């Protein structure tokens, strides 16, 4: 009953796919389910109605033309319209202003403003080489300013020192002065969480926007938000004027309804999404990918992009050379395990893959999580450098010592060594085949024996 939107739509379209051809009544039946699914996914009612009507118009018109795979046609129409509503395609941040350009972060309490501010600061400093200053204007929530200070220290981003008793406007003024004086490219202002119906605080946010003339005013909103998302987004847009939306907690199993609603009522683009608690877990928003994810098609492009960024190219080339020589050792396996960890662990990887929404519950039952990777890492770390380079010297007593060091049993150590020898054998076979030019002979020869 409460599975994810992709699961729901997946179920609807599975039924459509199984049919040879589609009547108008079938389309109507499917769209009724899409409607309920979207409502259960927290998409706001007017947005749902508009969405359904447009899909109906398009679906019924095309249905007659190609009756071969009507289900796929409906999927495509739903997907296209979802993408259109969420889109247009990813817009970057507008930083085109005389330095220091100001980015103002606003939103409800607990939406993730402070964490997002630090993530954004880190992203702009590391990827775009900007000199960033962050300042917390949150003088209301206990220890909010301290939180930004700590995050700044973690991310290596400058944070405006706190002056006790100073109000938000005064802090903003001081941040701008410091930005100008000390040659910062960007000043990120993290504001206190506020209710969109709190006149006093909304007026304060407006005053901040007038005073600091931000190039971007970003509404930070929680992807778990229900129907209220439309009220929140509309109010912040009308009263303060936003230039974009940052959707947080997209790594949860939220169904993304809030994204659709907020984009539809404000017309402002969703510029970034938060996908984890770590400071590098901020990504560009791609409407087509999110639409694809909603429809259960998986976010393959996102996975590839993440992999490209996380995997150290030099490391990869070094590894390739080693593989060719057949001199793989356990240090390399450790590197591999850590790379998987950096890409968000097994859960992070799985969330990007097609069709995962449907099997997710089964995966949860099977308890596939990142702990196995942690254990493997611990096992290798419990080995001496000599053992890592020459695993063949590891006999019974060494195994016992390693197992004790890693806090696992000897069977786990054996399993890891077996996995490693399978891997080396497979690699050796690849290189031999390459040498002999036999690669086209088929992939089955690559498979490790026995599985």
């Amino acid at each position, binding site marked *: 009953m409460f599975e994810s939107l992709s699961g729901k739509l997946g179920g609807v379209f599975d039924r459509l796919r199984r049919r040879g051809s589609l009547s108008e009544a079938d389309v109507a039946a499917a769209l009724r389910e899409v409607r309920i699914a979207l409502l259960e996914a927290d998409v706001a009612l007017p947005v749902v109605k508009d969405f359904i009507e447009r899909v109906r118009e398009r679906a019924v018109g095309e249905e007659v033309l190609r009756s071969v795979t009507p289900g796929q046609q409906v999927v495509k129409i739903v997907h296209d319209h979802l993408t259109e509503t969420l889109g247009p395609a990813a817009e970057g941040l507008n930083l085109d202003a005389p330095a220091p350009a100001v980015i103002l972060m606003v939103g409800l309490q607990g939406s993730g403003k402070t964490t997002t501010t630090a993530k954004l600061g880190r992203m702009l400093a590391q990827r775009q080489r900007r000199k960033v200053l962050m300042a917390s204007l949150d003088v209301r929530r*206990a220890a909010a300013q*301290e*939180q930004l200070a700590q995050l700044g220290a973690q991310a290596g981003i400058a944070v405006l020192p706190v002056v006790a008793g100073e109000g938000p406007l005064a802090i903003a003024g001081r941040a701008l002065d410091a930005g100008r004086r000390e040659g910062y490219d960007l000043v990120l202002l993290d504001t206190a969480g506020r209710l969109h119906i709190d006149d006093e605080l909304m007026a304060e946010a407006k005053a901040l926007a007038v005073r600091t003339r931000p190039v971007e005013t970003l509404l930070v909103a929680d992807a778990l*938000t*229900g129907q209220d*998302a439309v009220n929140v987004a509309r109010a912040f847009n009308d009263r303060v004027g936003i230039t974009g939306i940052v959707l947080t907690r997209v790594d949860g199993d*939220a169904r993304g309804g809030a994204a659709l609603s907020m984009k539809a009522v404000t017309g402002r683009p969703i510029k970034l999404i938060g996908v984890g608690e770590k400071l590098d877990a901020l990504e560009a928003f791609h409407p087509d990918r999110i639409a694809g994810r909603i429809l259960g098609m998986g976010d393959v492009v996102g996975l590839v992009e993440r992999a490209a960024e996380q995997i150290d190219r030099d490391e990869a080339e070094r590894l390739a050379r080693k593989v060719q020589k057949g001199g793989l050792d356990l240090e390399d396996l450790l590197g591999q395990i850590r790379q998987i960890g950096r890409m968000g662990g097994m859960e992070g990887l799985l969330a990007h893959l097609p069709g995962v929404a449907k099997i997710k519950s089964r995966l949860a039952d099977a308890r596939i999580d990142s*702990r196995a990777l942690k254990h493997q890492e611990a096992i290798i770390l419990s080995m001496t450098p000599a053992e890592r380079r020459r695993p063949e010297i590891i006999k019974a007593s060494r195994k016992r010592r390693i197992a004790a060091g890693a806090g696992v049993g000897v069977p786990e150590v054996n399993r890891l060594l077996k996995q490693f020898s399978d891997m080396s054998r497979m690699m050796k076979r690849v290189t031999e085949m390459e040498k002999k030019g036999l690669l086209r002979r088929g992939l089955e020869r690559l498979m490790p024996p026995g599985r």
Partner: protein
Amino acid sequence: MAASEGPKAGWLARLKAGLGRSSARLSQGIAALLVRRRLDAATLEELEELLISADLGAATAARLVADLARGRFEREVTPEEVKEALAEAVARILAPHAVALRPDPARKPFAILVVGVNGSGKTTTIGKLAKRFREEGRSVMLAAGDTFRAAAVEQLKVWGERTAAPVIAREPGADAAGLAFAALAEARARGIDVLLIDTAGRLQNKADLMAELAKIVRVLKKQDPEAPHAALLVLDATVGQNAHAQVEVFRDMTGISGLVVTKLDGTAKGGVVVALAERFGLPIHAVGVGEGADDLRPFDARAFARNLMGLDA
């Protein structure tokens, strides 16, 4: 809520103001829908949609509307009548679940674990609870179990100072289960009445983080098989249908004993609570209606339901 002392009119007015705002649109919608209209199928469908847009969820909305239609179908009805009937139905669902949180004085300490997703308002709720318990004359200790988020410990310490409650904390990144264990031991040794254990916010689909929560419960039970004596799930009123998944998973991992609904002073309707009460049968202990230390109130089913429908309490 009638049982609570203190600035009753003040907070009731505040809750009403908050809920009133949130329900204004809903009640206007119902009124517009029903003036001079028969209760026909089309009207019922629109009513159902209005309830859905109050976050009640499709299934609950469908059932409430079906109940409403019984005996009234095709009859002339007034908006007032419909609102009264819906409020009554909602209140009937919620009434058995409006249970105040009362620490058992026989437990020393009465250990309360507070869990929830990020940003739902756990630490603020603990601060408010600490204030209430202190005012009731109980000794209170706080355990800063959110060892992950930056400055979470500092935030709890501020609340500790405000309520004159000692705070047990460790360095950032420390094992939360170890800290909870030590805090329980400390509270026992000092004869503390209530121990409030904060935890890091976590999304319920993160298996490893949920396992960590289960571990906290496990180690507490090593000292006291009955501990934690209460486990509160803090829900943000703005949350949509994802609240179902939250309650389900947190309940499985920590054995949730009750809910606290925060941020009800906005336009968020918190309507999902109605479906949650039905589906999980969990007590709803309190609602948060503001950022101040006094803005936590016992949950009152009738007031909640009537306010949701835009009716006077």
